[in-house]
Structures are given as C-alpha cells and as structure tokens.
C-alpha cells in the first residue's frame, strides 16, 4: 500500500474567535508536507467528528483558548467514538493549564502544545505518531 500524505483536520471548538494560532499551525503543517483540512472557528463536537469521518483524516488538531476544553474535549472524544474513529491521533493547543494536561492525555490526546511550542516540534510529533499508527495497522 502506497504511503499517502498525512491528513490533518485543524479546527477550533467552542466560541472563542481567535484563530491566528490555528492558522499558523495549519500553514506550518502544510509546509511540512501534510494535507490540512481547515474548518475554522465555532465548531461543535458533532461538526468536528463528522468532518474527520468524511475526510478520513489521520490526525485532529484542536485549538482552544476559551478554557472550555474540560467540557468540550470529552464530548469530541465521545462523538469520535460513536463514529468508530478511535484510531485518529488527537493533539491540541492553545491556553490549557498545566494541571489539566494529565486529564486531557487520559481522554486520549497524544500531545498538548502550549504557547511557545515551535511548529517544527508539532509537525515532528505528528509525523512520529502517525508512523506508529500506520506501522501498527500494517503488522
């Protein structure tokens, strides 16, 4: 089976409208050779899961600055489960207190990237995670 470019959905759940960070990351992942599906702000958990399903993505990257991650992230994970998208790599960034990181990882997020993370670091992390998933599926 030929390798395909890594497909990433970049979305902002919830109601905060600051999408500069998400756009910077989307652009950086594009430059890292990935196909980025950018859906922008005010996404509901259902919209995110549905887009991930139709676009058959390897990765979902969520940007959130509003502080609603504790409420929204579990609902997104639940919507993904309902659609049997358990093997999609989940990463997030934005304003997330350090204390919440263990909780978010417990929900199934592979990576949490706070302010100051370099975009190369995010791209490298994603590449590594997807390689592991694809390797596991092939064997």
């Amino acid at each position, binding site marked *: *089976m*030929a390798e*395909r*470019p890594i497909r990433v959905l970049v979305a902002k759940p919830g109601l905060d409208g600051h999408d500069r960070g998400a756009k910077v990351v*989307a*652009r950086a*992942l*594009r*430059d*890292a*050779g*990935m*196909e*980025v*599906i*950018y*859906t*922008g702000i005010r996404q*509901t958990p*259902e*919209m995110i899961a*549905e*887009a991930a*399903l*139709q*676009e*058959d993505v390897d990765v979902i990257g969520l940007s959130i600055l509003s502080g609603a991650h504790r409420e929204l992230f579990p609902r997104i994970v639940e919507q993904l489960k309902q*659609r*049997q998208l358990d093997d999609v790599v989940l990463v997030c960034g934005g304003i997330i207190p350090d204390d919440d990181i263990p909780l978010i990882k417990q929900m199934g997020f592979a990576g949490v990237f706070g302010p100051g993370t370099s975009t190369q670091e995010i791209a490298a992390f994603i590449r590594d995670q997807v390689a592991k998933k694809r390797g596991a599926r092939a064997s």
Partner: protein
Amino acid sequence: MNADWVEQVRAGNPRAVARAISAIERGGEEARRVIIALFRFTGGAHIIGVTGAPGTGKSTLVNEIAKQYRRRGQRVGIVAVDPTSPFSGGALLGDRLRMQDLSGDAGVFIRSMATRGSLGGLAAATADAVKVLDAAGFEIVLVETVGAGQNEVDIARNAHTTLVVEAPGMGDDIQAIKAGIMEIADVLIVNKADHDEVSATVAALEMNLNLKPKTENEWRPPVLKTIATTGEGVAQVVEWIGKHRAYMEAHHLLHARERARARAELEKVVQNELMARLLRGVNGTKFDTLVEQIVAREMNVYAAAAMLLEEGR
C-alpha cells in the same frame, strides 16, 4: 476495508465512502479494485462542475447550491479540490470552511482533495472519487475545482453541467473573449452581484456569447447574477442546471459527453499502464541516466525516448 464494503458504500455509509475515496487517492491495485467493484453502480448522478478564479466565491456558492438541492430532497455529494504545494507536497484545504451550513445533514457528504501534482484544475483521483459518490447514491455530485486560471478546463470533461463563476472587476471584455475557461461554461455566474461593476461584467460576458455564430438548437449559456453569501439568485442557478440537463437529454448530448469522457479516461489509463509496463521492463537506473544525458545535452529527448521504447519492449 471490510468484506462488505461495496454494500456499505452503496448504502451511503459515510465511513465506507470515505475509505473508498482514500483508497482511490492512494492509487495502485487497491484503487483499481474499488472502481472495478463500483463501476456498474455508477451513472445515476448528475455531475455538476463549479470552476472559476480564486476568490470568486465558488465554495460559498456550492454551499448554497447544495442547500437548494437538499430542499428538493436530493442527496448531495461534494468533492472540493485545492492545490498541493509544489515545494512541500502539503496542501491547505479550505473549501469546507465555507460549507458549514451543510454540517450535520446526513444527506450531504463533503470531501476535500489536494491536486497532488496534477494540473488541469482537478486531482488525478477526482473522477474516480466522483464515481464512489455516484455509486453511493448521491443524486447530485458537485465538483469544485481549484481556483482556476484560463486553462484549467479538465472539469468540462468530467461534468454533465459546468458552471463558470466570475466576479465583478476581474477583467474587461477582452478577457471575456479569450479561449479556454470561458468556453466551457454551460452556465455563467457573476457572483458578488452586490459589488460595483457587476453590469459591466455581465455585459462583457453577454457580448462574448452574442459574438458566437448561432447554430441550430445550440445551448446558449445563461449569464446569472448571484450573491452567494446571502443565497440570492441561487435558486435560479439550480433551475438553469435543470434546464441544461433537460436540453442535453432532449438532444442526446448526455450520451455524447459520456462517450467523450469514457474515451479520455480509457486513453489515460492505457497511457499510464503502458508507461508503468515500459518502466518495469527497463533497467531501474536507465531512466535517470537518460535524464542526466539530456540535461548535459549529450542526448536529445526524442532519441532518449526511442531508446527507452526499444529497451522496454
């Protein structure tokens, strides 16, 4: 893919449809299997191409057109193509951003596609992705091309009805009479009709259409004004798509288009197969060696091709 994936695709199961399209994008043997299994279930969809320059409002218009068809109870599949970076191989697929109204509607399936190096306004896999949606029972399949320049006209071969979207202030009457994209329109749309200069744009397009010598029973594309952000004029677009479809059927042109498309597709597959077969028969480094010789002006491209063809026999 699961054993019963064909049934699942035909039932419109979104996961099965999504995976089948991914298989097609990956290409090779798997892609071939998908089309071989699904091909006999295709032919039911009305394929509508939407093309035009970047920023004319194609995605927003597709969103509104899809809503119109949904109101009429028809299921809508959408393939939206954006360019792949020639430098990184990555892509930013942003068409979905304009189609949020359609989210949550099980009668709509949207797939974003990167061109992955293919020219002409579509991805190499677009035509086959459309077949998957066709087999999945979507009565309407909308194909949005990359922001097209003057020569990205592949969509005309792949669609039953082609919409060319313009916006006011994009060029004068000379632009309107140039060959290429303007010629493939079955329906011409001047979007952003709330902007200035809209009447000048409409006039330029109408003039161009009027310059064409009339032949009997020929389809004359209408020039329609829309404001996609509010949905104004879009009902009329859908009406004209229906008229075009009826016209094609009445004049047996649908069959002619299908024939032209089948011919082009067959040619392309044979070309690719021959190329693959040839390269299999040729020593692996031979191709690269010849390329180097051409660059060094030691060999011309025709002589190199002749050598390859001889060796690959």
